[in-house]
C-alpha cells in the first residue's frame, strides 16, 4: 500500500537520473568506502588496488601532507604529527582524553569550548578535522570511480556512540563537503549485508533473531536484532566505545615493556615500536602457537597461551556486554538463531572461540569482517538516495544510552530510556522551586548512572522570560526528540505563558555552527567561486524537486484536501519559485524562495500525511471486517 508517493518515478516529467551514493565505514584503524553496482555492494579500491584506507593523517607545517598508507609511513619517524586512532577522541572532552590520553602519543591542548585539540606542526587540530580529512579522501576515491560528484553518503558509527560522538561524526562529514543521508549503526549495517544476502539465498519469509558482535580497533558493539520480511528491528544494543583490538596490542605491549625491563614513561617512538611489535605478534599468533620476538636488542618468545592470558580479561568484558544486551532484549541465549562476527579484531581466533562458547553456536563470518559494515551502509545508501524504491527494507534502530535532564540535587531524571526505538519524542513537565523564578537552566545528559556528574553532559541552555509566579505554579514542558540518526533536539516551553526555548543539541565539546562555516570557507578559500556555484546548483536541484513534487501532489490530492483558494495560493507560490529558479544566480535568493514555498505548502503536506494515515487505518479496519 503506497499512499504517499509524492513523486512516483512514472509520474515525473522526466525519469530520475541514477544517483551516486556510497556507504562509508569510518573506522578507528582503517576506513572503507563501498557502493552498489548492478545490485551488489562492492568496496571501492584506490589507484593501487587497495581497499582499506588506514585512518591516519600526517601533518606538516603547511597543513595536511598525506592521508592513509603514505601517512602511516611516518608513524615511527614523526609520531607527534602522525595522527591515528582519532575516532577514540571524536566527540570527547578533554577530561575523557586525559583518562586514556596516556595511551595515545599526542600532546593535547584545548580551546575555550573544552574540546581537545592535538598539537601538530600545522597548529592545533581538532579530531573532527582529522576525521574530515579521512572522509574527504574516501569521497575523492568514490568521485574518481563514478567520474561524477557524490550525491550522498551513509556513514557508520558504533551503535554505542553517544549523541556528542554522533554529532561530531556528522560535523566531520559536513566539513568534508559530504551530504549525510544517514548515520547508521555499524552492527545494523552488518546485519543488512548478511540479512539481504540470506534472503536472496532461501527466500525466507520467517523471522530470525540475530546477534551482531562487532569488535573494531577501538570500539566494541553488540546488537540483538529481529529480522522479519525485510524489517530489521534492533531489540537492544550495548558495548563500549573505548574498547577494541588496539587494547589487545596495548596489553601485549605492556607485557613486552615489563619483560624488556623498560621504564613506564616511554617516549613516543618507543611506544610506537612496542605497539607495532605487539600488533605483529598478535597477528602471527592467529596461525602459529608461538612467535619469536626481536625488539631493539631484546629477544624473547610469546606463546599463544600467554597471549590469551593477556587478552582474555578484555574479551570477557565484551561478553558481559553481550549478556546485558540479551537481558535488555528479553531473550535467552538459546533464542539467538545466528551470530555474526564483524570488525577486524574478530580475526583473532580467541575472540570467535569465546563468542561461540557464550552463544553455544558457531558464529558466521562468511563476509569479510573488514568490509561488511561498509557494504551494508552502501545498500542502505542506495535505498535512501532514491535509486531503489518500492523496496521493503526498513531499519528500526534504538538509542544506546538513556537521555535525561538534571534535576535538583544533581540527580538525573531519565526522559528516554536506553534501547528505545527511534525516532522517538517524549516530554516531561517540570516546575519552578522559588517564588518569582523567571528562568530555568536545562542541563541535558546522557548515560545510565544516577548522578549527573557521572553522565555525559550534552548541552546546557536556559529558558528565560517565565512570568513571575509562586513556586510550583509554572508548568515547564521539556520535550526531547531523537531523529532516525540518533541525534537529539530539545525544546522547553512554559505552558501558561507559552515562552519557548529550543536547542539543537550541540555537544559541549563539539564545533559551533560558525566554527564549521568558517572552517568550510577556509578549505574553499582558494576556490570561492567553486563553492558559490556548488551552492547554487544544490538550491536549483532542491527547487526542481520541490516544484515537481508539489505539482504531482496537487494533481493527486488538491481536489480532496484543498479548497479553491488554497489551491490557487499554492499554484501562485509555485509559479514564483519557477521564475526565481529561472532568473536568479544567487543561491541565497533561491533558498529564501524555496523556504517560503515550503511554508505555504506545510498545511497541505500535513493534511496529506494525516489523510494517508487515516486511510492506512481504514485499510486495517477493513481487514478486520473481512476476517470477522
Amino acid at each position, binding site marked *: 500500500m*503506497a499512499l504517499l508517493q509524492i513523486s512516483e518515478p512514472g509520474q515525473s516529467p522526466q525519469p530520475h537520473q541514477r544517483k551516486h551514493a556510497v556507504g562509508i565505514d569510518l573506522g578507528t584503524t582503517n576506513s572503507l568506502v563501498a557502493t552498489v553496482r548492478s545490485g551488489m555492494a562492492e568496496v571501492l579500491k584506490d589507484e593501487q588496488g587497495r581497499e582499506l584506507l588506514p585512518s591516519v593523517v600526517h601533518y606538516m607545517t603547511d597543513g595536511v601532507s598525506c592521508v592513509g598508507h603514505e601517512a602511516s609511513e611516518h608513524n615511527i619517524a614523526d609520531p607527534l604529527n602522525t595522527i591515528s586512532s582519532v575516532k577514540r577522541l571524536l566527540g570527547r572532552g578533554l577530561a575523557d582524553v586525559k583518562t586514556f590520553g596516556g595511551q595515545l602519543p599526542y600532546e593535547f591542548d584545548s580551546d575555550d569550548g573544552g574540546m581537545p585539540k592535538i598539537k601538530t606542526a600545522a597548529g592545533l587540530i581538532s579530531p573532527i578535522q582529522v576525521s574530515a580529512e579521512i572522509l574527504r579522501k574516501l569521497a575523492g576515491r568514490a568521485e574518481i570511480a563514478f567520474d561524477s560528484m557524490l550525491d550522498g553518503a551513509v556513514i557508520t558509527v558504533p551503535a554505542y556512540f553517544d549523541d556528542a560522538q554522533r554529532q561530531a561524526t556528522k560535523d566531520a562529514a559536513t566539513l568534508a563537503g559530504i551530504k549525510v543521508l544517514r548515520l547508521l549503526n555499524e552492527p545494523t549495517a552488518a546485519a543488512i549485508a548478511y540479512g539481504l544476502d540470506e534472503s536472496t539465498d532461501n527466500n525466507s519469509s520467517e523471522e530470525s533473531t540475530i546477534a551482531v558482535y562487532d569488535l573494531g580497533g577501538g570500539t566494541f558493539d553488540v546488537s540483538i536484532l529481529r529480522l522479519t520480511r525485510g524489517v530489521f528491528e534492533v531489540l537492544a544494543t550495548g558495548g563500549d566505545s573505548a574498547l577494541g583490538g588496539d587494547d589487545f596490542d596495548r596489553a601485549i605491549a605492556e607485557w613486552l615493556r615489563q619483560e624488556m625491563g623498560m621504564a613506564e614513561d616511554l617516549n613516543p617512538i618507543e611506544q610506537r615500536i612496542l605497539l607495532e611489535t605487539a600488533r605483529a605478534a598478535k597477528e602471527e599468533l592467529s596461525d602459529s602457537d608461538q612467535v619469536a620476538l626481536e625488539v631493539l636488542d631484546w629477544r624473547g618468545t610469546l606463546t599463544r597461551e600467554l597471549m590469551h592470558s593477556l587478552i582474555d580479561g578484555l574479551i570477557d568484558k565484551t561478553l558481559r556486554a553481550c*549478556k546485558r544486551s540479551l537481558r535488555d532484549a528479553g531473550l535467552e541465549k538459546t533464542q539467538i538463531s545466528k551470530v555474526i562476527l564483524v570488525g577486524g579484531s574478530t580475526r583473532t581466533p580467541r575472540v570467535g572461540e569465546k563468542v561461540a562458547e557464550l552463544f553455544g553456536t558457531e558464529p558466521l563470518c562468511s563476509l569479510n569482517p573488514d568490509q561488511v559494515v561498509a557494504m551494508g551502509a552502501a545498500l542502505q545508501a542506495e535505498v535512501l538516495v532514491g535509486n531503489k524504491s518500492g523496496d521493503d527494507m526498513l531499519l528500526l534502530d534504538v538509542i544506546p544510552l538513556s537521555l535525561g535532564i538534571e534535576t535538583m540535587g544533581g540527580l538525573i531524571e531519565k526522559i528516554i530510556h536506553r534501547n528505545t*526505538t527511534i525516532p522517538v519524542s517524549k516530554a516531561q513537565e517540570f516546575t519552578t522551586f522559588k517564588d518569582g523564578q523567571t528562568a530555568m537552566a536545562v542541563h541535558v545528559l546522557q548515560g545510565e548512572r544516577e548522578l549527573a556528574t557521572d553522565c555525559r553532559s550534552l548541552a546546557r541552555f536556559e529558558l528565560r522570560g517565565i512570568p513571575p509566579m509562586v513556586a510550583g505554579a509554572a508548568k515547564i514542558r521539556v520535550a526531547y526528540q531523537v531523529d532516525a540518526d540518533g541525534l537529539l533536539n530539545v525544546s522547553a516551553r512554559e505552558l501558561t505563558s507559552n515562552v519557548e526555548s529550543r536547542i539543537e543539541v550541540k555537544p559541549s565539546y563539539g564545533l559551533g555552527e560558525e566554527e564549521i562555516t568558517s572552517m568550510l570557507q577556509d578549505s574553499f578559500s582558494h576556490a570561492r567561486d567553486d563553492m558559490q556555484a556548488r551552492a547554487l546548483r544544490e538550491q536549483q536541484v532542491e527547487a526542481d*524537486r*520541490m516544484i515537481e513534487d508539489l505539482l504531482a501532489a496537487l494533481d493527486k490530492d488538491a481536489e*480532496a484536501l484543498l479548497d479553491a483558494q488554497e489551491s490557487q495560493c499554492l499554484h501562485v507560490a509555485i509559479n514564483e519559485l519557477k521564475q526565481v529558479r529561472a532568473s536568479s544566480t544567487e543561491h541565497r535568493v533561491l533558498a529564501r524562495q524555496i523556504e517560503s514555498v515550503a511554508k505555504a505548502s506545510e498545511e497541505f*503536506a500535513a493534511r496529506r500525511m494525516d489523510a494517508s494515515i487515516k486511510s*492506512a487505518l*481504514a485499510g486495517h*479496519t477493513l481487514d478486520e471486517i473481512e476476517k470477522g
Partner: protein
Amino acid sequence: MNVVAARASTFSHSQTKAAKQVDSPLKLSSDFFEIFGLPVAWQVEREQLDSRYRKLQQEFHPDRYASQGATEKRLALQTASLINQAYDSLKSPLKRAQYLLQLKQMDASQESHITSDGAFLMAQIELREELSEVRDSADPWAALESLRKGVEAGYLEQQNEFQGHYNAQAFDDALNTVTKMQFSSKLLYEIEQLEGDLEDL
C-alpha cells in the same frame, strides 16, 4: 477501499483541530489502539500488534521520505515517533493498563498513588528484604531465580485482576491494581539489574 470518504472526513476534522495544536502541524487524533486498528481493550493480540507496527513503519518511517522536502521529512519524523510511542505503550502490560485508565481520564502514571492494601505492602517489604539478601545467600543465582519466579507469578495475577476490574468498569479498583503492578514491574527491573551485577563479579 473507502479512501475518499476517509480523506473527506479527516479534512473537516483537521480543520477544527488546527488552532489547538500549535507545536505539531500533524493533526492525528487517533488513540493508540486506533493507530493499530485494534479495539480498545486489555487483551492485545501480540502478533497482530507486531505485524501492524512493522507495516505502519514501512510506510511512515523517515527513511521512506529521505529524498523528499524538509516538511515531509519533519512530518514523517513526528508520525514515526507517534507510532513508536503507541507501540511501546501497548506492548508493555503496565503501560497498556496505565493508558487504558488514561483514556478514562484517570492519571495512573504517577508513582505517588499509594495502595491501601496493608497485606500487599507487607509482602512487598518482605520481597525487598529477600532481594537485598540475595548477594549473601549460599547460592545467589538460585535465590534470585526463585525470587523472580515469585514476583512474575504475582505480576501475572495482578494483570488478571486488572482485566477483571477494567472489564467490570470498576476503574478505581483498576487504578489500585495498577499501583501494585508498578511495584512488581519495578522489582522485576531491579532483579534484572542485580543479575547483571552478579555476572560482573
